[in-house]
């Protein structure tokens, strides 16, 4: 009997050893810090603009072009040194930067800044910004707002004219059909571009610390980020993440997914199936079935990549590079490459052939 058990264990170990993990994208990370041109290591946001990379740091807005960094500061009329969010107007090439002191537009090198004192902006702390058509949608610490670039009119959205309970708005994702706001403590607000109506998604169990009804709605009220792509809403909270297809919710928690942490700062959908999750314990990629996590090891700081398959099997992948830090704040895509904002530097993930 003992011999049989040994054989079974041996076979099982052999199967595990030789079962190939799912093929997940691999990257060689090149990291940028103050030592090679960034104005600050604390990078809140990142934006890919063709060959240019914009990094919103705690100490200015940096742009990487032709292998060199240039930094815009308040001396260049940037609204504030801390740049929390970035958005590109793809038609005009203008970049919009949400800062701790207002909203700035960078156009052809000129910066125009909008604040709560000099414009209709609802609040100077701009956590999120998204451009769609002629409208700039803004998430601030005191409500949401929209700037109509045709008329220069500001429209504010708050507890008086939307179902918003809290007014601390963390993120925004605007598309031609829907605009979604992540409202910290008030779930997700949905604006229908066609009807002009608002709707709201909240945690159905109303429990802030527990998940009583998994997959019955938004995972938590404390939403931090939204991404609407291919008619799919991806939502991040500090207590797990959600995917919503307009009818069904699917929630992600560390205990039953490949998420490295339930504390998610930022989420960005690639398409209806795939998304990136920026957590406090690493960067996670979900391909609709499998997960990959990229980070410096939480134990020893060594580069680490793990892959989790549909059955929950986690396989380490040998890597030599990792994002600059495991506290991830933002991500954007440059073809197959990724650019990652972390608390201690900006990382360029260069896709590796497998």
């Amino acid at each position, binding site marked *: 009997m003992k011999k049989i058990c040994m054989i079974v264990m041996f076979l099982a170990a052999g199967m595990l050893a030789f079962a190939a993990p799912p093929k997940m994208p691999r990257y060689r990370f090149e990291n940028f810090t103050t030592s090679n041109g960034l104005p600050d290591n604390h990078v809140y946001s990142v934006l890919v603009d063709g060959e240019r990379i914009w990094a919103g740091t705690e100490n200015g807005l940096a742009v990487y072009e032709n292998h060199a960094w240039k930094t815009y500061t308040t001396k260049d009329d940037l609204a504030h040194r801390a740049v929390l969010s970035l958005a590109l107007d793809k*038609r*005009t*090439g*203008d970049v919009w930067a949400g800062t701790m002191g207002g909203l700035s*537009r960078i*156009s*052809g*090198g*000129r910066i*125009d800044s909008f604040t*709560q*004192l*000099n*414009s*209709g902006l*609802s*609040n100077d702390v701009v956590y999120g910004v998204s451009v769609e058509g*002629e409208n700039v949608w803004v998430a601030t610490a*005191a409500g949401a707002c929209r700037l109509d*670039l*045709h*008329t220069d*009119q*500001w*429209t*504010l959205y*708050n507890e*008086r*004219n939307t179902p918003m309970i809290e007014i601390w708005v963390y993120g925004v994702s605007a598309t031609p059909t829907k605009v979604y706001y992540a409202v910290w403590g008030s779930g997700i607000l949905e604006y229908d571009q066609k009807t002009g109506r608002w709707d709201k998604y909240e945690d159905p169990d109303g429990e802030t610390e527990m998940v009583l009804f998994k997959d019955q709605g938004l995972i938590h009220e404390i939403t931090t980020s939204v991404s609407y792509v291919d008619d799919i809403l991806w939502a991040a909270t500090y207590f797990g993440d959600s995917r919503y297809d307009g009818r069904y919710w699917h929630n992600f928690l560390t205990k039953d997914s490949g998420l490295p942490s339930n504390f998610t700062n930022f989420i960005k959908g690639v398409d209806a199936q795939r998304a990136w999750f920026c957590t406090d314990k690493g960067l996670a990629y979900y391909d609709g079935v499998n997960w990959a996590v990229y980070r410096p090891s939480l134990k020893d700081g060594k580069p680490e990549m793990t892959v989790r398959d549909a059955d929950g099997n986690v396989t380490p992948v040998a890597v030599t590079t990792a994002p600059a830090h495991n506290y991830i704040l933002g991500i954007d895509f440059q073809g197959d490459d990724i650019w990652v904002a972390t608390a201690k530097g900006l990382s360029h993930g260069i896709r590796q052939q497998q």
Partner: protein
Amino acid sequence: MSQRIRTWCGAGLAVMAAALLTFAFWFAINHPVRADESDMQDYASPLEVLLSPDGARIYALCQQSEEVRVLDAASFAVIKNIAVGRVPRGFSLSASGDRLFVTNSWDDTLSVIDTGTLAVIATWPVGAEPSSVVEDRAGKRLFVANRISSNVVVLDAQTGVEEKRLIAGRGASYLTPSPDGSRLYATHIFPNPSPHRTAPESEITVIDTARAVVVDRMPLHAIAGVFHLAFSPDGRLGAVAEYHPKNLVPLAHLEHGGAFADTLTLFGADVGKMVEVPLDELERYASQPFGVAIAPDKSRIYVTCGGSEMVTVVDVPRLLRFIHTHPSPYTQDLSASSNYVVTRIAVGHNPRGLTLSRDGRKLFVANRLDDTISVIDTRTNRVASTIALAGPKTLSVLRKGEQAFYTARFSFQGQIGCATCHIDSTFDGLTWDLEPDGFGRDIVDNKMLEGVKGTEPYKWNGGNPNLPTECGPRTEKYFWRSENYDDRTLTDLVLYVRGLAPRPNRWRLPGGELTPAQERGKALFERSQDKFGKPIPESNRCSYCHSGPKGTNQKISDVGTRKPTDNSGLLKAAPLTSIALTAPYLHDGSARSLEEIWTLYNPDDKHGRTNDLTKDELNDLIEYLRTR
């Protein structure tokens, strides 16, 4: 006794005569003959001029008659007058020459003219106050500079469908393609916003025509008012006409060249780093430079000077030699231009647009307030002929007043005219330190003139009881520092200024209805109770001081905006006409936006009760104000 009677009678007659003269002057001011808008419509007022690609036709853009007049370039005979939209401001030919595009600045449209049939074949909506238009070389896109919306609208050149809007400088007005067509250069007439009492900042907005995106903004430091730009055919030399105001020092030194420098900024491979060069010379100022053309052989630059009523001719080799051998800056150097300005050619009243024949031998200049086109022989630098456009043969009082408004001949050494600060009869977006209040005292924002009739007293402090005082003694003494107007000229000028009608308001819906936000703002404007139910004293309601159709009760009050540099806090309630256009705000221009009037400069609620308002309510109030 009889001597005494004679003395009394003489004195009485003198008093009566004075009274009669005063009455006559008052009557003329208040009962003008034909002094209405229709009076202005009779004139052609050519603003810009073009030649057809084969040189056979002259196209004259006539602003007041609202036409494109087509003339035979050899005989100057009229071929056709083509009616376009309201107050056309700019035009250009398509890349193939088969279409002529006209921007109609007051109805926000673009007229498309078939140059074969000379008929308008399409009228397309564009941005607010379109002022210039250029088609790309491929004939795919049209670019239109819009003065009020301060942008460049990109349209499909075949359908007119708008593709996008690119942010340009404030008051975007003039577009010039590079010789190879790959870039488009946009200039603007009002300075971009900058901190209070700092040098104005302007730009040349550079657009990649293939991608239709802004790729650069060439800074023009200390410049406010940038007009036409031209390139040499090889693209190595660019020149732009501009005003260099000296508004940070007291306006007390006109005799020292202290109000404006009239300059060109040069750029391109021939120049290296951008450089600003003055056109002025002592006693021979180049007031209100506007149009620029560079000779095909790059030997000359021609600049129309609307206030000086002449064309300044610059020798390019000498100019380049000068800038390469003399370190800049020399903007203030009145001796510099003698190194490269070779002559000044007198033309008609208010010369504006100009164009060269393909061989460069003829220069055509549109004299806006003469209804003529001067044809200059560039070999002799003399006016060879003057083409008179059809129109009234006599000058109306308004026409004479407009000429007086634009000319610089009344100021000391011909340096400035009314239109130097009131660009195109509006404003300049600058703050000034005028002498009468003391140096460094009573900084004032320059105001819009449109709709000024019936808003007396004038000046921010209401110190001038009427326009004859405002435009006459005050202007003559403190601005012109020169001869006085005669009574007739002053009357003409005053009537012209009084007749300036407000341009169409772009924030009002057709039919005059208000949007929901504007309605809410109107209610706040007119409210008599604050949000806590407390009555607002009548004198502290928006609608009290800013009452009536022009938004002023014409009374003097203190709204708590006095600055340490102000001699008094007493100010006249400012009219609200076209308020959305006229930043900066408050008497000293310290508020850079309408919002700042209340977010920064109304801490004690003396400028209306506003501190109970939420941010969205303040936004509503501003949305309403924009409709005024």
